[in-house]
């Protein structure tokens, strides 16, 4: 595989799964030319006038949609670890003797591990989407036929729009739908909130199948997915496990160290003057991020400050802020608990968003850059503030990019993380995999102090006379190494197993194979 050194100094392939790819040129350095892709023209003549697109089962739908060797099938991840559909699709494909499919999920979870047998047998050629858990391990071991491609949520959306990824069949699991294909995620026994991750799939795929376990007569409102894009509707008994779709137990961390980090983050945002009337913030659903939102809410209450909008990943904590009037709006990309689902359904100020509005880098702007402050995690951050979210320090694929890269365009990007985890340094000299360029990462907040990126002189000025525990990133690093000891370099193979895309579609880094001696989770057929 031919590799070239990109603008970040990383060696990346110039061709990915047979398609020419553009190496990263620097933040804000690459502008693609040309026109967006467009779906084929359809005609009402081909669809039933009564609007009834129901077919007997998923297999029939896939056959009618023209499932065949070598095509691309997409799914969404709004059901998270409770999804039943993606596995079913590839079981059917195997039954039909189909080979070499490209699976293009908006993310995959541990519940999708059974698809390893379809990867082994060649039903699935490769996955382009987040690779974590067992699937991450499988890819890390170098056993996937094609190259894994890791894209941000925004990057995935525009890869579809730009024509980089053409979806042949999109299968959209929908908690509620009507026979015409209108669908939403806020109603029904498998309610998950929004369906934004499937929006581009519905608009651009050749064939669109909606699968639901809660069929309602036309019209299904709200229609987060419009039936006008949909070819077939399938009704099934159960499309997911609600207890794993929204856990209902999204709890704040009880770790005193994480709570302390969360307090520091909230205090930093206040001290730096970011917390003011009409501001906006984004926080994810990790334990520390939840705790941060709660701490910030306390400070906002105390100082009588109100946000204009909050970006979620919504949880009951953000919902409470909305109800209490601490924010005018929640702009929600995915909903993490039942309170979030209920709020999105019932409260017009809890707004459903998609990666297009929030994150798409090839749009005419997006929301991410308008957010005043975002609080994110990472597996590693280095002395140049570069950060990694996709691999563990031993090089193993661990996590998808999600909206993480897109969020780096916020006015203030804070990474809130422990300085080490189980002896493994999080503050490192150089990240194993580059996912976020350091120039976009402003503040690193750990239990051992706060390091501000030297290029953010304004932030340094804003907090210089405070009692915040400010340190340089080098000081933090020295301290961590003193505690943990200097780690040895992990031994990695030469084979490239995955490519990390930047938000503009260029290739930021590549992920190498983990050697057999270091294989982690035991996978079927691994011996």
């Amino acid at each position: 595989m031919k590799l070239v050194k990109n603008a970040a100094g990383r060696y990346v392939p110039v061709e990915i799964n047979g398609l020419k790819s553009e190496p990263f040129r620097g933040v804000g350095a690459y502008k693609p030319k040309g026109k967006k892709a467009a779906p084929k023209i359809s005609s009402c003549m081909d669809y039933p006038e009564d609007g009834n697109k129901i077919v007997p089962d998923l297999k029939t739908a896939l056959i009618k949609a023209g499932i065949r060797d070598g095509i691309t099938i997409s799914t969404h991840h709004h059901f998270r670890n409770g999804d039943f559909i993606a596995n079913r699709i590839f079981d059917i494909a195997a039954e039909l003797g189909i080979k070499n499919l490209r699976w293009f999920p908006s993310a995959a979870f541990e519940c999708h591990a059974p698809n390893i047998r379809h990867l082994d047998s060649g039903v699935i050629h490769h996955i382009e989407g987040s690779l974590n858990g067992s699937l991450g391990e499988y890819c890390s071991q170098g056993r996937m036929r094609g190259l894994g491609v890791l894209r941000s949520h925004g990057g995935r959306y525009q890869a579809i729009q730009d024509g980089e990824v053409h979806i042949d069949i999109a299968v959209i699991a929908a908690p509620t739908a009507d026979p015409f294909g209108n669908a939403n995620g806020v109603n029904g026994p498998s309610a998950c909130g929004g369906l934004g991750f499937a929006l581009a799939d519905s608009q651009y795929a050749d064939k669109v199948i909606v699968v639901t376990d809660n069929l309602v007569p036309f019209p299904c409102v709200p229609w987060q997915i419009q039936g006008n894009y949909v070819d077939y509707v399938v009704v099934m008994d159960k499309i997911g496990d609600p207890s794993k779709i929204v856990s209902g137990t999204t709890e704040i961390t009880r770790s005193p160290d994480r709570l302390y980090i969360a307090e520091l983050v909230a205090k930093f945002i206040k001290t730096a003057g970011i917390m003011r009337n009409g501001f906006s913030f984004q926080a994810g659903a990790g334990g520390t991020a939840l705790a941060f939102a709660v701490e910030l809410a306390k400070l906002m209450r105390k100082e009588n400050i109100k946000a204009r909008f909050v970006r979620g990943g919504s949880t009951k904590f953000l919902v409470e802020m909305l109800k209490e009037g601490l924010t005018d709006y929640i702009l929600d990309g995915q909903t993490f608990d039942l309170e979030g689902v209920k709020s999105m359904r019932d409260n017009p100020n809890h707004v459903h968003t998609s990666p297009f509005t929030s994150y798409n880098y090839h749009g005419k702007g997006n929301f991410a850059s308008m957010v005043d402050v975002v609080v994110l995690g990472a597996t590693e951050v280095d002395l140049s503030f570069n950060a990694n979210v996709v691999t563990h320090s031993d090089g193993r694929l661990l996590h998808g990019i999600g909206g993480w890269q897109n969020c780096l365009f916020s006015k203030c990007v804070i990474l809130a993380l422990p300085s080490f985890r189980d002896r493994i340094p999080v503050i490192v000299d150089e990240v194993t995999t580059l996912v976020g360029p350091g120039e976009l990462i402003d503040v690193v907040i750990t239990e051992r102090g706060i390091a501000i990126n030297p290029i953010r002189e304004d932030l340094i000025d804003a907090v210089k006379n405070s009692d915040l525990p400010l340190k340089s990133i080098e000081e933090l690093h020295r301290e961590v190494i003193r505690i943990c000891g200097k780690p040895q370099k992990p031994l990695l193979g030469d084979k490239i197993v995955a490519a990390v895309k930047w938000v503009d579609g260029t290739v930021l880094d590549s992920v190498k194979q983990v050697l057999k001696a270091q294989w982690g989770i035991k996978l079927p057929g691994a011996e």
Partner: protein
Amino acid sequence: MNTIAEAGRKGSDVRSDCYICIELRKSGGIKIELVSRVDVLYGKSIKNIIKKGCEYFGIENAIIKVEDSGALQFVIMARLETAVKRLGKTTRKEFLPEMLECAKYPTKRDRFRRSRLYLPGNEPKYMLNAGIHKPDGIILDLEDSVNPTEKDAARILVRNALRQVDFYGCERMVRINQIPAGLEDLDYVIPHNVHVILIPKCEKAEDVLLVNERIIKILKGKKKTVYLMPIIESALGVINAYEIASSAENVVALTIGLEDYTADIGTQRTIEGKESFFARSMIVNAAKAAGIQAIDTVFSDVTDMEGLRNSVIEAKSLGFEGKGCIHPRQISVIHEAFAPDDAEIQKAIKIVKAYKEAETKGLSVVAVGNKMIDPPVVKRAMKTIEHALSIGRLQENWMEN
């Protein structure tokens, strides 16, 4: 002598610890079987330190099984040493990690002791980050939180922690076991910059004197003060409180343990606390009479922050200056509740300003308005200022305003 011995903990719920099993052999050299979560990054380093330890203790042929859950090096060293000593090899040798600069800071006799955080002495995972929560003191406990079968392991682990862990300026305390058993604990911790020894179930001045005797013996004429905080936990201790408080120059604080005390007088702890009012007041008065700090018992319900706050306010009103805690989240609640209120701070500012003014003018008498101020009042006001500064209620430049 045994041919097989083990130390440390393993299992999926274990963190930052390390299980080591040594099986002595007649030949074959040292064979290390390592399973570690951090193998890829620290496998070599773990094997190296095990080999070094074997060399140090003169073990030439053994199979050493290591199951590591991300233990730091000083923990691995402690577990290895414990296993070696459990082989029954009578060795006085100590496999010491380096004494780090960050472990060398001193303490002061009259520093704040508002909060003291108890950490189980045989549990490495809590030690590493305890200092970041900034309690006034951190207690590495060898007594009640350590299983009787693990006392030997805890001593070695605590000793290594004293040499390697940065407690970020917190006072470094160790609670030893009850005298006389606790005297042996001192051998392990005194040489490693421990600031305060807590003497549990202290009943008479003699307990304190025995501790001091042993400390002097260990320090071998080295000039170093180790402070003591006796814990009164019985009726006899309460009756002897003043004798204990004034028994030695290095006793800096007196505290009380109510669980054992209430059992001793044949009653139970209540929220209201009538049953311990006498004992607590005795502690306060004995301590004040001896010119040392009076420190209240531990508040052990970690979920009840409001209860903790009320308990501290009540303790403060009785004359206590500190409270024990077992969870980092309790610390800020304790500090806030002990903090002087605005009126106290403003009064203290006036007094200290007047004092400074008198000092610069060379006056021997300090007055605020037409009221004379005695030196103890000035001292107390300075303490209030220091307190207000430490919790951010007063800015460093308060004199200029």
